């Protein structure tokens, strides 16, 4: 007599359940990785509070749409990089690494002390990173690479040798899926946001403060799909980015600069480095001791030439009662770059806008003209390390909530 087994769907559900729970002791899974390996496509891994010494890899289309969710509050599930090893015996590099799985959601997790990144998504269509905290990972906090669309929201990154938030090498798309970064806090990093050759990125309603530089979209030869294009920086507060991580004893060690022998600028709010069609508008940019907005091209790489960028309607230092060293600086390269409606701004050089360096945005796209003296000033600054601070224009700051400025000092 044939005995009927369980229906195929029931067997599959048992093998790959929709919901699994992880905890340090007393659950079916004590390792997040084992739970991820088991959970069904689209399923949820619920993680109870505790510290998990492991790096988690979510790989391939069979893990599309899964959710990793910390329970019990935003900071109670900690992925600890110190002592964590991967399956090959190497140090685990990332808190969570999503590779080629679409629409994965990471929520309410902390990743700290990983040798590479906190949360890393590569080769994905869409992702959600929400209520995450990344701390003292060596490269990036929340990191998306070669992906189409996605969102980083309500998350915090600090102590990174590159940036707290990074979107890089976005493939060009006919009908772009945009990437949204909103309600973020990035502080005490080399850079708050960095995005090499990123496209279709909207950075809004976030705070970037106490970094070396606040928000830095950029174009480099090293990655595909140059230039960084079609982004917006709107409604953010970008302030006090005066972290001199070059100082001896700094707990944040910068990665070797991707810009060759040049260092990244410190004391700077927003940097537009060789980008196209970026809009910087409606931001509060203040208390940055070198430059508020700094726009420069890479003269050695043609795609990294600033084109058609608009800096409009921002409230700069004076309007916030906390001056920038100089509100705006450019060496004037590229074409179609314009500056309008930013109130009373301080400029380099001069007190009146040089119409070639700082043309307004009304009418036809302006012609720009490179000023080699300005370029020389930039090069001189970026060749310095710890000495960049010597040219900062320092002063006490106006209070901002409960935040404390670090102004050149190391992280407390």
């Amino acid at each position, binding site marked *: 007599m044939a005995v009927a087994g369980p229906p195929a769907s029931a067997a599959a559900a048992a093998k790959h359940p929709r919901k699994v729970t992880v905890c340090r002791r007393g659950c079916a899974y004590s390792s997040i990785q084992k739970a991820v390996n088991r959970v069904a496509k689209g399923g949820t891994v619920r993680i109870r509070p505790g510290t998990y010494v492991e790096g988690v890899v979510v790989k391939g289309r069979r893990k599309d749409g899964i959710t990793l969710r910390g329970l019990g509050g935003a900071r109670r599930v900690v992925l600890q990089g110190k002592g964590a090893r991967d399956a090959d015996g190497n140090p685990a590099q990332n808190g969570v690494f999503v590779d080629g799985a679409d629409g994965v959601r990471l929520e309410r997790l902390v990743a700290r002390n990983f*040798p590479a990144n906190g949360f890393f998504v590569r080769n994905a269509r869409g992702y959600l990173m929400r209520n995450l905290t990344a701390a003292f990972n060596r490269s990036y906090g929340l990191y998306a690479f070669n992906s189409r669309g996605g969102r980083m929201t309500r998350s915090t990154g600090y102590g990174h040798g590159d940036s707290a938030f990074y979107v890089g090498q976005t493939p060009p798309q006919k009908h772009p899926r945009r990437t949204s970064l909103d309600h973020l806090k990035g502080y005490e990093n080399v850079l708050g946001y960095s995005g090499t050759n990123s496209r279709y990125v909207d950075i809004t309603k976030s705070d970037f403060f106490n970094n070396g530089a606040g928000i830095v979209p950029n174009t480099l030869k090293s990655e595909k799909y140059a230039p960084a294009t079609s982004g917006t920086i709107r409604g953010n507060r970008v302030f006090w980015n005066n972290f001199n991580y070059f100082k001896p004893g700094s707990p944040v060690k910068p990665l070797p600069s991707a810009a060759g022998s040049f260092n990244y600028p410190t004391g700077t709010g927003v940097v537009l480095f060789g980008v196209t069609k970026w809009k910087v508008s409606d931001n509060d940019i203040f208390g940055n001791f070198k430059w508020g907005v700094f726009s420069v091209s890479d003269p050695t790489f043609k795609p990294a030439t600033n084109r058609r960028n608009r800096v409009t309607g921002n409230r700069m230092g004076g309007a916030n009662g906390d001056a920038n060293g100089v509100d705006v600086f450019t060496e004037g390269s590229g074409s179609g770059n314009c500056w309008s409606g930013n109130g009373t701004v301080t400029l380099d050089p001069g007190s009146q806008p040089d119409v070639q360096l700082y043309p307004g945005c009304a009418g036809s796209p302006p012609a720009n003209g490179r000023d080699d003296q300005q370029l020389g000033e930039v090069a001189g600054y970026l060749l310095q390390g710890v000495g960049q601070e010597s040219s900062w224009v320092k002063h006490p700051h106006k209070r901002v909530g409960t935040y404390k400025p670090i102004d050149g000092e190391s992280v407390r």
Partner: protein
Amino acid sequence: MRRPEPRLGLAALAGAGLLAGAVPAVAGSAPADAVATAAKKKRRPKPRAVKVRDNYYGPAKLKVRRNTKVTWKWPSDIGDTHDVKTRKVPRGAKKFQSPPYASGAKYSQTFKKPGTYKLYCTFHSTEMTMTVVVKK
């Protein structure tokens, strides 16, 4: 039950160095398996190491014999994220890709098929490349 006595052959003794000076070192006097082992050892190519740095492999070109094990080594302290992936391999050779690493990691592959292997870092594909030529 008594355990059988371990059999200690000449080869084992030779391997342990116990016969040094006791047996004249005359060519052809060693047992066949010891000779074969020695010959095999001689044939096995020396492993090679490649540094993975920002943003290059060192060396960027490597010539090796068949069956050479190549190990890529990431820096021990700090670095950007890199991997190593095959772009082009000889016919019949296996493609491979390492996981992405930033520091403290090693990754090895043994090159069995002769020919030219083109490799690159998927994060810095426009400038971080290397070639391995495997000789017959």
